[in-house]
């Protein structure tokens, strides 16, 4: 009986998995790219640019994503910009995680020691080759664990989209709990989805770490 319910829930949640993955993927891509841009600015020469990036990162890091999502979803129409729930969720996830990605990149590049840069210069590598062969591989290997955690966090954060009526896993599960008294079965199935999703991401990252292991 309970096993049948579990299977039923797993089947009913499957369509919602697509929406959650889509949301996570889109936000990860945008956040990873824009975050790199911010990291470059924060390494750059413009003092105003550095300060603006710092302010952006600090503000977004120190406010809850759920309130940001409400702000975007309920606040933007007030300014005359209509957004669908999915768009609002995507926008706020991307904005928040851009800040986290920028921090990861910044820490990664700052961690590559001056010694290896000097060594690269001493053996006559050009600036571009130093970046390509020495700095980037070392920075990437050091950033990978943090990037892995970050992607897992984005997947977990997609659950917040349920509060503004995006029909992803958590919202579907909430709907299903209304059909049964054995709500814990529904939540167990939901937890399994997140655990498997994040398990796959962790495995992928471990593979990537092996690929870049030569740099360490």
């Amino acid at each position: 009986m309970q096993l049948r319910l579990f299977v039923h829930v797993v089947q009913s949640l499957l369509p919602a998995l697509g929406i959650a993955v889509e949301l996570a993927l889109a936000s990860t891509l945008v956040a990873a790219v824009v975050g790199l841009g911010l990291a470059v600015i924060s390494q750059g020469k413009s003092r105003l640019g550095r300060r603006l990036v710092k302010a952006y990162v600090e503000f977004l890091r120190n406010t809850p994503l759920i309130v940001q999502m409400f702000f975007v979803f309920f606040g933007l129409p007030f300014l005359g910009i209509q957004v669908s729930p999915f768009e609002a969720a995507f926008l706020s996830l991307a904005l928040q995680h851009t800040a986290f990605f920028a921090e990861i990149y910044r820490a990664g590049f700052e961690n590559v020691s001056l010694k290896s840069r000097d060594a690269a210069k001493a053996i006559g590598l050009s600036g571009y080759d130093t970046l390509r062969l020495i700095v980037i591989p070392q920075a990437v290997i050091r950033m990978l664990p943090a990037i892995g955690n970050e992607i897992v966090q984005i997947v977990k954060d997609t659950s917040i989209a349920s509060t503004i009526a995006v029909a992803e896993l958590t919202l579907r599960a909430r709907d299903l709990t209304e059909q049964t008294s054995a709500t814990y079965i529904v939540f167990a199935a939901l937890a399994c989805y997140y655990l498997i999703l994040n398990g796959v991401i962790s495995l992928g990252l471990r593979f990537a770490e092996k690929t870049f292991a030569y740099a360490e």
Partner: protein
Amino acid sequence: MIDDLLYLLRASLNTLALSLISIGISTLLGVLIGVVCAFRVPIIPILNAIFVGFVRGVPLLVVIFAIYYSAPAFGIDIDPFAAAVTGLSFYFTFFVSEIVRGAVGAVPRGQFDAAYSLGLTFWQRARLVILPQALRSALPPMINTWLILVKGSAFASVIGVWELTTASTELAQRTVAPFQVYGASMLIYFAICFTLACFGSFAEKRLRFQT
């Protein structure tokens, strides 16, 4: 206008209460579990690893929902505030335990042996020798975890706990000014969290060279 702001500030006191209680419980339990794990007691490290894997993979929102809506199925009558405290404390206990486990592991092996050879008991070794050294390196990441907990307390709004996020939603509907209300609410959260963040980086600088 001023009344509305005061309303939000009053609600943020509830956010603070919710956060502080959960920080207290999770830090206490987390340190305890982390220390026990590092001392190679059987079974507990395995359980700890299972729960750490669980909280790393499952969203806090789901955990809070699960506790609040599943408790009646087990015959437990739970009010929203208690459910939120339970969820937050459970979730962050295992973040703290992992930090502490790592920090205790980083204390040089010789310290353990020296304390043992002095004839100190288990709790004396933990309390007098290992913990003072381990907590130094554990404190900055622990403060960061507290910060994440304060932000996570906003999820209590989804099960109807009256705190800052719930109050903001109420106020936004009443005043039909969601832009300003949620903006103000973010500023209040920022004030709380940024204070913690500054405290964290201060602790990191202060404690760095003394181990």
